[in-house]
């Protein structure tokens, strides 16, 4: 099986699986309990918080909250914003950002950013209170947003960054770029599903979503999920160890794939090719064959990736494609290829070969 849908979810590092399993065997206690056995688990969780802060080069004025998902974290952060303050965001961002904004905030406070990330900074206000909420790397397009630079240039802005697609892949330095809050998702970088971390400045007045036993300083009640948190920890250790090497490798794999496809498929289009995108995410358009058909043909070869047209007419209604100003006739023809630490040249070559084979045979049908 060859897997190219890593932006949706990335396979777990073997070490992370082992760490999770080990913790399930050993850490039976509720880490909030008062006895010594529980305190062992508690300490391991504290070590994970410390590792996260260290990885982000964060000073002691940040704290780490564990939650179930990046979606939960984004909802909690956005829910904490004072009403009446302008919020700058990208309409093409992940639904876990746009939906809480559209559902919970007053429309007059919502300020959409320009489509092109390079126009982002100059459109931000030069003074006054305002929020910026943005994914560092857009999960659909791979476009990189100047989320951290924004804080440096406009320190008066409160900046919330969803780093789900960049943590473990890009260097994030909170000392240099002191944004107000960052979300990290375990399952997008080789950790288990079901756990995420919200890193916030200590003076961030976060509102509570889940009330209960008062865990996480009263900000998020729920028994801490020791095994998943320790799996996350292990994934962070693995990812940071090889981060730079991986980045270089995937850069060259991406350009190899694009070159190779452009050679074999004359009409392939690489979207946002002229802008800076993550080496982990590539958005392709294959004009003559709907991408869901290609996806299912590749499925038969056990190659899995993501298509823009999930079912029937839904693709045309997908507001993201509209927002990104992707031409109507291409909207059902988008394939997202997303890499991980596991991706290698052999797999990329196989993808190119099979994609070309199917495209060549199918494009003549219509």
């Amino acid at each position: 099986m060859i897997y190219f849908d890593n932006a949706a979810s990335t396979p777990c590092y073997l070490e992370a699986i082992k760490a999770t399993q080990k913790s399930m065997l050993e850490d039976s206690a509720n880490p909030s309990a008062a006895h010594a056995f529980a305190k062992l688990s508690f300490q391991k969780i504290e070590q994970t918080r410390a590792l996260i802060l260290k990885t982000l080069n964060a000073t002691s004025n940040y704290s780490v909250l564990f939650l179930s998902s990046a979606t939960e974290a984004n909802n909690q952060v956005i829910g904490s914003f004072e009403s009446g303050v302008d919020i700058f965001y990208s309409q093409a961002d992940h639904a876990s950002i746009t939906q809480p904004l559209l559902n919970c905030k007053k429309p007059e406070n919502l300020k959409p950013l320009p489509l092109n990330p390079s126009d982002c900074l100059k459109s931000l206000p030069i003074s006054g209170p305002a929020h910026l909420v943005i994914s560092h790397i857009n999960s659909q397009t791979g476009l990189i947003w100047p989320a951290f630079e924004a804080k440096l240039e406009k320190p008066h802005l409160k900046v919330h960054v969803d780093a789900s697609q960049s943590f473990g892949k890009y260097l994030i330095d909170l000392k240099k770029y002191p944004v107000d809050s960052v979300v990290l998702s375990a399952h997008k970088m080789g950790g288990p599903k079901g756990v995420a971390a919200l890193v916030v400045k200590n003076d961030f007045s976060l509102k509570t979503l889940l009330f209960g036993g008062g865990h996480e300083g009263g900000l998020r009640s729920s028994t801490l999920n020791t095994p998943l948190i320790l799996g996350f920890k292990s994934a962070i250790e693995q990812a940071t160890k090889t981060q730079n090497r991986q980045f270089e490798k995937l850069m060259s794999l991406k350009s190899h794939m694009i070159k190779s496809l452009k050679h074999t498929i004359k009409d392939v289009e690489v979207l946002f090719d002229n802008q800076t995108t993550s080496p982990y995410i590539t958005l392709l358009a294959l004009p003559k064959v709907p991408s869901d058909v290609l996806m299912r043909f590749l499925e038969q070869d056990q190659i899995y990736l993501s298509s823009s047209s999930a079912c029937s007419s839904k693709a045309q209604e997908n507001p993201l494609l509209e927002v990104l100003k992707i031409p109507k006739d291409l909207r059902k023809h988008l394939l997202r290829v997303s890499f991980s630490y596991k991706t290698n040249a052999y797999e990329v070559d196989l993808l190119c070969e099979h994609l070309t084979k199917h495209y060549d045979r199918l494009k003549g049908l219509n």
Partner: protein
Amino acid sequence: MKNYKTLIITVDELWLKGANKDFFSKTLKKNLKRVLKTFHPAKFIYNDEGAKHVVSSELEFTDELIKRLLKTTGLNSIMPALVTDLSLESAKACIVKILPDLPVTAKSFRVTTKRTNKGFKVGSMQTSKELGSIVLQNKPHLKVQMKNADLEIIVSVLQKNIFISYERFFGVGGLPVGTAGSMVTLLSGGIDSPVASFLMAKRGVDQSFVFFHAHPFVGDEVVEKVKRLTTKIKPYVRFCPLHIVPFGAIQQTIAEKCPEGYQTLFFKIYMLKTANALARHLDAKGLITGDALSQVSSQTLDNIACVDQCLPGTTILRPLIGMNKIEISNLAEKIGTYKISIEPHDDACAMLSSKHPVTKGSPETCKQFLTEYPLNEAINECLQQTKRVVINLEEKISELQSYTEVDFNPHL
């Protein structure tokens, strides 16, 4: 509506049947008993008195059950009834018991007596008169009215008992499924084919369904849709196992080889050829399609003629042939399939067909293509890979054994 422990069931079209009466009546009984056994949580006694069937139980029959029974084809009507002995005195005592249940809104009434048991010596007219006067004594505000009365109290004098009812619910009528033999129905996921199936069920045809799944050109969502449609038609059509035939590869071959404009027509011809091979295996007498004349390009008179000439000796029934779209849609609403049918689903034709399909296909071109590309092996293979599912009365879906070992021999 008040729930009673007895139902009088009248049979539709039985008077047309002469010597076969018994067969039709028994088939209806068999079909109804299956529904009763599944949905009535108590024991029941079923008496078949020819044109009238009587079902009685210790437990009242619910509205739900009656609605379900009304979907059984061949059933004309159901009357929930009170039962009493074969005497006028008993009937008088019985009609008093029904009075509190009568709808308060009624201003006028009549009593109709149907005396199939001629051994009962009091005449129909007199029975009606005497029972009517009891109603009047107890409900003085009611007025007797022969025509268009608000309320009709029906007194059925049968072999062993008298039955009194004031409500009558009509079913879909026609003939019981299983009296006309079996056929294979092509389902597409659209509006028409479930209606075609319903109309043929109403004429007594047992059916197997076949859906041609153009995977990988379309996703599996459409299969779920067709399963849901099958569930909706199920109450009318008895067993109706659904065959999901993987057809994408054959459609791709056709699209690659066929003359421009003929794609859709050929898809249809090969689907029918495949369905025909399946029908032979199932010992079915022919095929049912949802064609309506000139509705789409593959349903023009010329193209229907092409289809028939390519499949000589095959009986293809097209019950919607003379119907307008609105008429078909109304029927689809009635049987509950319309809302499911209009849900959007992937259509392989968009990707595989010409934008300008032929409307006047040439039978010679079609026959020549069939001779050149019989695709018998491919058809045999896709039938062997067919998934068979059956949906039981309680809407549970289970998978049947596949045909891996069968040789379908799809030669025409």
